[in-house]
């Protein structure tokens, strides 16, 4: 195995990985926030009903 250090293409490689990681982390945080909020609101509504 070789270890990638520097390359004339490093800005393009880093850019590609940055876009992917930002998207994956961003969409995961948004989804987790929405899921937790929905769970909390449903629990509140169900407790109000009972």
């Amino acid at each position, binding site marked *: 195995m070789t270890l*990638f250090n520097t390359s004339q293409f490093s800005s*393009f490689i880093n850019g590609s990985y940055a876009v*992917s990681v930002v998207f994956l982390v961003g*969409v995961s945080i948004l*989804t*987790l926030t929405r899921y937790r909020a929905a769970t909390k609101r449903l629990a509140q*509504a169900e407790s109000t009903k009972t």
Partner: protein
Amino acid sequence: MNENVLAPTALPASKSSWLHRYANPGRFLRLARPCLPWLTAFSLILTITGLIWGYYFAPADWEQGDAARIMYVHVPAAWVAMAGYAALALASFFSLIWRHPLADIAAEEIGPVGAGFTFVCLVSGALWGKPMWGAYWVWDARLTSVLVLFFLYLGHIALIRAFDNPQHGHRAAAILALVGAVNLPIIVFSVQWWNTLHQGNTISISGGSKIYVTMLYPLLIASLGFYLTFITLVVARMSASIMEKKTRNLLLAEAERS
């Protein structure tokens, strides 16, 4: 607009059919809740492993050098973008034919996630194209058909929310999704049908892959990670949507009582 045009009668289905059993949002929620932590864990492990392996440890390509490392994000994103649209078309088919409430929810939640993966595929492809071809973008058959896929996702997201009656939005968006599915074989075979700047298929399910195992393994792990991430995100978003609907119904019932 005529109500009957946008809301035709659904085909009858046997109550005992598996389609009806698993189309129940409540049952989906009960099944999804215990699965989500496992899905999240496997998605994280595989995606992080695949990306780190591809970025640091995979060998450089003999022809493209280190720029080929972009493959470990570009190819998985492209595969998920296409698989996501196939899932969207399938959900739309179930929605139109059997009127499954879960199919409408799935279609609504697949759209934004699929569009995100298509965006990653387009941007990483442009960043690969510049050092290899000397241009971020060319109107090549493969690139153009993936751009059309991105617009189809955006159109679906917009159309599903464009009507006052949500059911009309789901019907219209489902028709768009099914018509747009014709773009999938065009994307896959574009590199064979036309003389494209984009390279041909490197990996073949039927064998004869033109990629060495030290590059294939990180690519497959990253792809599996991206697929699982997509599934996890869609299942979590569908669960959240079902819970939001359930909360709204409970609050409405409470308001009507009081």
